[in-house]
Structures are given as C-alpha cells and as structure tokens.
C-alpha cells in the first residue's frame, strides 16, 4: 500500500480521537488500536462494560421470495434456525468447502435477511451472493457504506439497555430487533465478538455519534470504557472466535477450523457439501488447535513442535489477560491432539514448552445458559 493512499474513516473517527484513541491502519481503515490500554479495556469488558466502533463491518441485505433459498444454498449452517427476529452464525462456503467468509445472517422477515459480513470481504461476499442468486427471485444489496455499527459488550451492558432499548433485553443470543433510534431505522442484536453478553447497534451514519455518546452516558455508572482493536483481539481469541483472513480463508474448511457445529449436512445440498461430507467421514489432516504457554508471548507465525518435529504454525496468538499466559491457535497435524498434550512453540528462536488446550480458552457471559432479561 502506498503511503499516500488515504485510509477509510468511519463516521465515529473524530469521536474516537476525542476519546484518545490511538489510530492505526487496519486493512485500509483508520481505527483505534487502544484508548486507555489493552489490559484495562479487556478487563472492563470481562467485568463490566466496554464499547467498540465496528463500523468497518459490512451489511448485505438479501430480500425476495428466494432470499432463504439463496442463503441456504451458500451457507454451511441451516438457515431454518434463523426464524424471524433471530440470526445464525455461519460459514459461506466455496466449491472446495473453503470459507468465502464467516457471517451472521439475521432473518428480519421470511423474505428479508440482514447479513453482517467482514470488512475486508464485503465486496467479495456481495458479488458471491449476486452470482449464486442469478437465476433466483432475490435482490442482493451491499449497504456497507450506509451503516455504522457500535458493539457494547460486557456483563453490565444489559442493565444499560433497560432504558435505551427494553425490547432488546428479551432477545436471546443472536436475536435481533428493528427499532427507531433518534428518528432513524436501526437494528439492535444480542451479538458480539468478545464472549460477553451485550449488543451491537447497526445505525445510519448520521446518528451514530449520538448513539455512542448515549452509551457512554448510560454506561458511566458501570465504568464503561471505549475499547480498541487490541482488546477486541484478545477478547475474541480467549473466546475461540475466528478471525477471517488470519484463522480461516478460502483454503481452509469449517471442519478444519474446528467449527464442525456450524455444518449442517442434513439440511439438503449447499455449495461445498460433498467435500464437507467426505471430511466428516474421513476426518481432516489438520485442525485449528488451541495451546497455552507460560514462558513468553506467542505470536502469529510462530512454529509449533511436538517431539522435536514441526507440526504447524500459529494463526492467531497473544497474551491472554484473563488467563495471564500465552494463548494461540494454529493448524496442527495430527488433527486429533488431546488437551494437555505436550508441545513446544518457537519464540525468538527459543523453544518454549506449551500444551494443547480446549477452545474456547475462557467462557464469558455470552456462553451462559440464561441471559439477563430485565429487573
């Protein structure tokens, strides 16, 4: 990328600067890496409340009589789980069963879906849906440039929403409600990328600063803090969530990424199904496997060894503020390593003892059986 190329800015750019965000280039977007510090932000989300600008995320609307058919055809998960007012986390698969993207498809009505896609893949996803839907009665619209998005995350966030959006408190995990906020049509969903309970508000640019400031006000009694990409990464990795482009891409399948629960082989045909069915029967040669270590901080790209032999490299890795040790995930072979198995990770040319861990590394309030529904 040339130095003169201008970075894309979200509608919250000035607000991020006002709150002291340290801005960086994130895949062509100017976003804050941190505000008060990654550890403080991470802990605020785990223990109380934090707020993130996630306006770089994309919104693709799929509408029409064949909207369900198109999404069912292009996704590994079963869209029948997404009844009106609900969403489903899914993998959009290519013919090789690699991932076009990982997404959340929200069913707004039987013939109307909102698909939240990754920033770097929004155009690719839009074109993929358009191509696959050529012969269907369906309209695919990439509205990513029309919407901003904030994620408000943490165990105390539902209490903040008692005034702001009481109907959102009744939502199950992955539920969504359409709501007028500051005179504009918005979406509030019980979703996030941190492993804690909370909401994401998708809104037109013109009111997003108002939404942010309202959240800061409602969150004040809970010590809400603005959070950056740094905390977003440590929170999501502890929770075992995938980062598209780093943990998964067009060349890795859902089974390989250890997200087999996403695959619904019995829903009928979908793109890449035959390959996934074969992998289900035969197993996979490599699997995204978790590990922990105490003698250093592992980073993406670090080599992993077992019995002195290299068995893979780390896709994502960092220091875990919750576990207070290094954590990472990488595609390792053999694919059937058991938690506790002894490994080594090469850090700065030195081999540090590590062990296989189950993923998620930490289960926050988003994983709870029951969610807060109001006082």
């Amino acid at each position, binding site marked *: 990328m040339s130095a003169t190329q201008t970075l894309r800015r979200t509608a919250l750019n000035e607000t991020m600067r006002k709150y002291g965000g340290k801005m960086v280039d994130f895949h062509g977007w100017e976003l804050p890496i941190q505000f008060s510090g990654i550890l403080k932000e991470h802990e605020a989300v785990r223990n109380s409340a934090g707020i993130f600008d996630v306006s770089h995320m994309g919104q693709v609307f799929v509408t029409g009589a064949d909207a369900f058919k198109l999404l069912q055809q292009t996704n590994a998960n079963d869209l029948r789980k997404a009844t009106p007012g609900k969403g489903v986390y899914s993998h959009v698969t290519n013919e090789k069963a690699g991932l076009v993207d990982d997404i959340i498809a929200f069913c707004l009505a039987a013939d109307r879906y909102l698909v939240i896609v990754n920033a770097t893949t929004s155009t690719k996803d839009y074109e993929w849906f358009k191509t696959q839907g050529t012969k269907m009665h369906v309209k695919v619209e990439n509205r990513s440039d029309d919407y901003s998005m904030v994620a408000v995350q943490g165990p105390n966030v539902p209490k903040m929403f008692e005034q702001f959006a009481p109907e959102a408190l009744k939502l199950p995990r992955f539920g969504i409600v359409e709501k007028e906020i500051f005179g504009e049509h918005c979406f509030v969903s019980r979703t996030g990328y941190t492993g804690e309970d909370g909401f994401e508000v998708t809104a037109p640019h013109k009111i997003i600063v108002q939404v942010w400031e309202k959240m800061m006000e409602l969150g004040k009694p809970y010590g809400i803090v603005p959070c950056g990409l740094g905390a977003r990464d440590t929170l999501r990795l502890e929770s075992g969530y995938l980062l598209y482009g780093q943990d998964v891409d067009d060349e890795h399948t859902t089974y390989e990424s250890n997200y087999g629960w996403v695959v619904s082989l019995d829903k009928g045909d979908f793109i890449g199904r035959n390959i996934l069915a074969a992998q289900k029967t035969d197993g996979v040669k490599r699997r995204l496997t978790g590990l922990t270590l105490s003698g250093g901080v592992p980073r993406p790209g670090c080599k992993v060894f077992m019995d002195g032999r290299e068995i893979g490299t780390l896709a994502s890795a960092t220091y875990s503020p919750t576990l207070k040790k*290094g954590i990472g995930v990488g595609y390792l072979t053999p694919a059937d390593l058991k938690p506790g198995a002894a490994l080594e990770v090469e850090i700065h040319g030195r081999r540090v003892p590590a062990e296989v861990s189950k993923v998620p590394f930490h289960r926050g309030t988003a994983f709870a059986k029951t969610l807060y529904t109001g006082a």
Partner: protein
Amino acid sequence: MPKAEEVKYTKTHEWLHLAGNEGTVGLSEHAQKEMGDIVFVELPKPGRKLEKDKPCAVVESVKSAFDIYSPLNGEVVAVNEAVSGDPALINQSPLEGGWLFKVKADNPAEAGALMDFAAYGDFLKQNAH
C-alpha cells in the same frame, strides 16, 4: 534512583545510569508508553558477556515484542527479578522499580557517546511522524 534528566539514552530507547563502572539499564519512559501494557520480560543471565548494540533482553507487550540492546560492552552483574514477576513495573516506573539489569562496563567511557536527556528529546521529535 535516577531521574529522567540524569540518565543517558540510546537510539533504541534504553536508558543507562552509570555509577563508577556499573551501569543500570532500563526502557525509556517514551518507549514504555509507546509499547502499552508490558506482560512479559526475558532478561539476560548474570555473568553473561554483553556486546554493545546487540540484543540481550526482550520486553513484550500485549501487541508487540521489543528487543533490548546493550548500551555498553560488559558483563551482567544483576537482573531485576521483580520485573520478571510483575512486568507492569516497567510501565509504572520505568526508571525505578522497572529497571532491567546492571552491567559492569568494560570501558565506562563508551557511555559518552550516548544521548543526554535534551538530545534524546530532540531525537524523539525528529523521529515523530
């Protein structure tokens, strides 16, 4: 304990405080701020011979790793065990509780080539984006 104005600085952001031929080495206030929360430190073993301008320790924050370069030729005579257990000391007080190691200088005059506080300040300004 030294003040920021009393120590010498390297272009790689270490500080050095020399007393006779024994130097104490740490990470500058500027560097700790840039790195953010420090979560891991790997220090050299006492007795190790250090070469001037060669990496001899590693300081890691949540986001990045940072090599520490020896400001002098010499031998490690002490390390700060406290920062190994609590690396946040480097953020909290980089010139006091957060010192990294002490080196017995082969030739203390080598320190004369390092920057003083004012020169380091100018160096940071020149290198700011």
